[in-house]
């Protein structure tokens, strides 16, 4: 019972950290798609005196990834209904050129303003419309959710790491005598702390397995059965095989840091 309790006191905080990492990975993957959609759906309107090529726009600002000219004939056909051909031609001659510009990144309102001012620096460009307000509100909500989640994950990880170190200190105390004897006979740190590494590595592997199994269950069984559209839509993002490796590396790294932290914090043999 004591053995199980001892290990759970280590495995649970480690699992909390791994959960945090996995949540972060899932969130990043899901929001990447969302960001891409937002970016692809966003265009700014530019009005110019004469035709402008994409590379000219890109020379003005590198975030511009595409440009499509609004068909001037369609505009004329809408505004010059019932007019004579000469009048239409006259309007067409005076009509400026309209472009929808796409961006390569999801940008905040300051960055959009920067693009606007970069474009306006060109005397050929008469007007730029960024539609910044609706874009900014979406972006701010998105950034706030992301920030909240990341803050929570970091906080949870710090608290869990402190618990891991505390449990490691208990183990060190349990094996103190053995470690002291080994130190007297000249054992290097790695050998002295070998017992701590062994226990911690084992628990790190168990924690990784538990979290991986949990998320595989969520992905392949629970997500489909849940009937939640968002889950079904993002099922692929829920867990990747490569996550097992990421979680294992993270847990082993944490364990090594915790062992070194605990072992180095002691000041040699005390008798």
């Amino acid at each position, binding site marked *: 019972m004591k053995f199980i309790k001892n290990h759970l006191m280590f495995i649970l905080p480690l699992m909390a950290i791994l959960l945090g990492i996995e949540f972060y990975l899932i969130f990043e993957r899901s929001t990447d798609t969302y960001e891409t959609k937002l970016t692809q759906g966003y265009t700014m309107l530019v009005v110019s005196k004469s035709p402008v090529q994409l590379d000219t726009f890109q020379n003005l600002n590198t975030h511009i990834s595409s440009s499509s000219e609004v068909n001037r004939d369609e505009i004329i056909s809408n505004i010059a209904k019932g007019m004579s051909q000469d009048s239409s031609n006259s309007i067409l001659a005076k009509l400026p050129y309209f472009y929808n510009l796409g961006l390569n990144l999801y940008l905040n309102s300051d960055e959009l303003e920067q693009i606007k001012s970069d474009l306006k620096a060109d005397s050929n460009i008469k007007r730029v419309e960024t539609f910044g307000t609706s874009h900014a509100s979406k972006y701010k909500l998105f950034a706030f959710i992301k920030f909240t989640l990341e803050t929570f994950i970091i906080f949870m990880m710090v608290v869990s790491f402190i618990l891991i170190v505390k449990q490691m200190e208990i183990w060190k105390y349990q094996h103190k005598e*053995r470690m002291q004897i080994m130190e*007297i*006979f000249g054992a290097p740190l790695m050998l002295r702390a070998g017992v701590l590494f062994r226990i911690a590595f084992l628990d790190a592997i168990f924690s990784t397995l538990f979290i991986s199994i949990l998320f595989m269950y969520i992905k392949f069984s629970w997500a489909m059965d849940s009937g939640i559209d968002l889950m079904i839509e993002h099922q692929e993002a829920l867990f990747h095989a490569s996550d097992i490796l990421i979680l294992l590396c993270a847990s082993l790294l944490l364990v090594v840091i915790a062992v070194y932290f605990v072992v180095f914090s002691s000041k040699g043999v005390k008798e």
Partner: protein
Amino acid sequence: MSNVIQATNLTLAYDNGTKEIIKDANFAIKKGEFVFITGPSGSGKSTLLKALYGQLKPREGNLIVGGHNLSNIRRKKLQELRTHMGMIFQDYKLVNEWTVAKNVVLPLMIAGYSNEVQDTQARRLLKHVKLPEYADKYPLELSGGEQQRVGVARALSKNPVVILADEPTGNLDDYSSNVIWDLMENACQQLDTTVLVVTHKIPTIFSLPYRHFIIENRGVYEVH
């Protein structure tokens, strides 16, 4: 003959150097010598021993053991030096979760010897200390005298340059004490190992010509 241990103006102190235990001590011990250090309780015998295995850094002066000055030795060098020392303690300092055999070969394990070498040495040493059938037992299954014989076997396992013993018979009856003295005397004679024993009382059964230092009033003096 070269000195295995040499102290020059050695001062040892606790509490960040404020509480002096030994002051301006000068002595030298040669290879293969058997030396006793005695003194009243609290005189600093164990403190001197701690300094000899690098657990306590000298406050002043030099303390050279096996060619290494312990006043400024690096951690890595100290670890290496300790693998050439055999240590015997009054409270045995055996790892209770390990078998007797594993305890005996601890210095070999630290030095990275193969399992085969460790097994062979464990058998040989346990036979030497007359405990051949105890290899798979655990220290707490043994009597005090037997545990100390395991301690002696461990101290001898890597043919050390020097054996440091802190009250090795302090907890033992006369019979067990005599066995331990006999084993240590043999190690000195047969292996040419320097043996330094800290004890409050020198045993009368001793047959070797030995040197004797006494610690009094913070000084280390040789008794002639």
